[in-house]
């Protein structure tokens, strides 16, 4: 029971994989598995940043739009210098993340509203700057970032880094503290505003990394890229077992959540008989079931 409580998503992932192996011959092939990983690597990077925000008691709805902004920025800068494109894309998204954090902490606007406004404004800005056209990346300085094993390796490196930060740095510990109870954390002497701003900056920056990866993979910066990713990222974090109210969870759980949703999507594709709309209905139902099951086997917060 205790194992299930902490690893419910992992058990579900194993079960889904067993179903996949049993029913679909093409599931357990190098090609299919590496496809799953590569297709979900960008979303995984976004979900990593989301994990920090949610652990700190917030929510970030702007990440999908920031992926698009970063991709467009990278594509526009890349012709000058590939590295400039990479750094520029990440930097722009990070700055927008910092603005989210400042509005939430200093102007005291709710995270939901702040990041919803950022979603709308950032997406619109990406469309306006590009005149609704995709920006092709001339030359091939960035292409490697989105191809082969590079995205997967990058994903794993970033998750290892995220784990280290959460587990072993003061900032990471303070993210948990703020998500547990921001007022108490402040009374205990933490500078909570800085920590909250840090989580949104990180979320923005990682959305920027994902945006650059996506642009490199597509060979273009698309202003309409990553629409709805914020919801997929939140779903992955929550399915993985991080509390939506903050204070408890971790990055590996999120990775399991990303893979779980990714494998299910893959199985639907392999099956090929379920219409896309019913796939979405099933995915939504599945999300609900996993979260309900998890919240029921979770111990009460205050056992007597």
């Amino acid at each position, binding site marked *: 029971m205790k194992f299930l409580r902490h690893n419910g998503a992992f058990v579900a992932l194993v079960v889904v994989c067993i179903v996949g192996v049993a029913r679909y011959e093409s599931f357990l092939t190098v090609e299919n598995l590496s496809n799953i990983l590569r297709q979900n690597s960008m979303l995984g990077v976004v979900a990593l940043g989301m994990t920090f925000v949610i652990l700190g008691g917030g929510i970030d709805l702007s990440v999908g739009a920031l992926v698009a902004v970063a991709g467009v920025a990278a594509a526009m800068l890349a012709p000058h210098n590939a590295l400039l494109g990479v750094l520029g894309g990440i930097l722009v998204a990070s700055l927008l993340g910092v603005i989210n954090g400042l509005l939430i902490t200093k102007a005291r606007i709710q995270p939901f509203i702040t990041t919803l406004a950022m979603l709308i404004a950032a997406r619109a800005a990406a469309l306006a700057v590009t005149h609704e056209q995709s920006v092709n990346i001339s030359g091939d300085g960035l292409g490697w970032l989105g191809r082969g094993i590079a995205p997967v390796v990058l994903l794993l490196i970033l998750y290892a880094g995220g784990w*280290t930060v959460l*587990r*072993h*740095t*003061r900032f990471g*510990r303070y993210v*948990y*503290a703020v998500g*547990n*109870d921001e007022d*108490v*954390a402040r*009374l*205990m*002497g*933490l500078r909570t505003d800085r920590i909250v701003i840090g989580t949104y900056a990180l979320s923005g920056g990682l959305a920027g990394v994902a945006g650059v990866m996506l642009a490199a993979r597509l060979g273009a910066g698309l202003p309409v890229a990553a629409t709805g990713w914020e919801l997929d990222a939140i779903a992955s974090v929550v399915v993985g077992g991080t509390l939506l109210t903050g*204070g*408890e969870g971790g990055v590996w759980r999120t990775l399991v959540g990303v893979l779980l949703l990714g494998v299910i999507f893959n199985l639907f594709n392999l099956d090929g008989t379920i219409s896309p709309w019913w796939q979405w209905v099933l995915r939504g139902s599945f999300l609900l079931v996993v979260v309900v099951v998890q919240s029921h086997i979770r111990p009460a*917060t*205050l*056992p007597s």
Partner: protein
Amino acid sequence: MADVAPPSLLRLEGITRRFGAVTALDRVDVSFRRGEVHALVGENGAGKSTLVKIMTGAYRRDDGEMFLDGAAVNFQTPAEAQAAGICAVHQEVHLLGMRTVAENLFLGREPLRWGLVDWRTMMHDARVLLDDLGLDIDPAATLSHISVARQQMVAIARGVSLGASLLVLDEPTSSLAEREVVILFDLIARLRARGTSIVYISHRLDEIYTVCDRVTVLRDGKLVATRSLDGLERIDLICLMLGKSREALRLGATAFGGRHAAAANVEPLLRARSIAFAPRLRDVSLDVQKGEIVGVAGLLGSGRSETAQVLFGTAKSTAGSMFMNGAPYAPGSPRDAMRAGIGFVSEDRKADGIIPELSVRENLTLAALPLFTKFGIVSRVRQMAIVDRYMSRLGIRASSADQNIRELSGGNQQKVLLARWLCTDPELLILDEPTRGIDIGARGEIQRLVNELAESGLGVLMISSELEELVEGCSRVVVLRDGRTVAELQGDGVSEHAIVHAMAETAL
């Protein structure tokens, strides 16, 4: 022992604090000695919490001086007070429930190794710290998984490890079981032996006499006295808290007409036997007859308001039994209580009583709305008839029934609340501090009104901290102490003297 006072650790001189027109603290002088456990007591509004907040940097003072180790100090924030060694541990533990004990102890100053948190050292240091204080707590345990008492000890240990030389414990035992209290007292003794000063705020006299060396009594924002507890009789301490001189526990002058003869041995309207609601209410029994005013007396924290909550169904009794008109009564909600014929005018008019945005008419008829509502539609005609009747009967002074209740005086607001319940035609009315915060004139009117209501057959249970009001208004007074009925006074036995003695639990 020669009467040479040991040097004081923290000395407060002439501390004054105003909130608007209200003076919460008026030139209070106190000094806390090194290594003493110093009780701070007083009834509601005495100024205890304001004083503590000034000491710990949560509030600023308007006037006065503070000296720590002889040097003038002026804390702007709790962090500054903490850095100077003054630390408060509150009733609700201000710690992180999802984190481990060790993390809570070292939050903000985690040991680092190459820039990363050194968990091994942190666990080790936490264990040493806890062992040192004689606390058997696993530093790796999640805080919310240990008992509230232990959480409180962790908060104290954190204060100690932050270098606190003066710890303020604000009602530390209010949510503890008795055996946990023992552990806490043990810790307090240890800290005192180490030279830590402790300011101990509590309503429980037993505890104060068990752990404290001296006591400071505040009343209405003023210092009453600081005394050594050695040789101070309980009855004298209570007299200090209530502002009575022991010799002059006498009849006061209220508008209650006098005594009601206790009704004969008929089936009481309300009978409560050994009701309990943890942690404050342990064993309370009382009867109310028709046409009788029964008083409930007790110090703050004795379980007075909790009794009302259980009777009115906002808290569920965990033991004992209750009967209304002889029938078993176990309300699950105020709605059940209203159906059984009980009305309740709460202690805090502003928070629980009036709805400030609404008119006199709407406030008055709130509880009785179902009576003149058909198919969800409120009959305005019947509503107005009732409002007119009660406004004239109770002498509610408002420009019209549609005046906003917020604009009325406290006394008139209270009358509206009384009317609210009277128009539901109750058999029993529970009044919690019916005259608190009401000016003298209106106070008399309300007392007269309650008297008239009882004479017309209504049973009244009146909770009050005004001893005169109880003595002159009630035919019987039930005295509570630490959540238990400790005395039931009747007829000529009802006197301030007897009530105070029952509160102190000393023989007459």
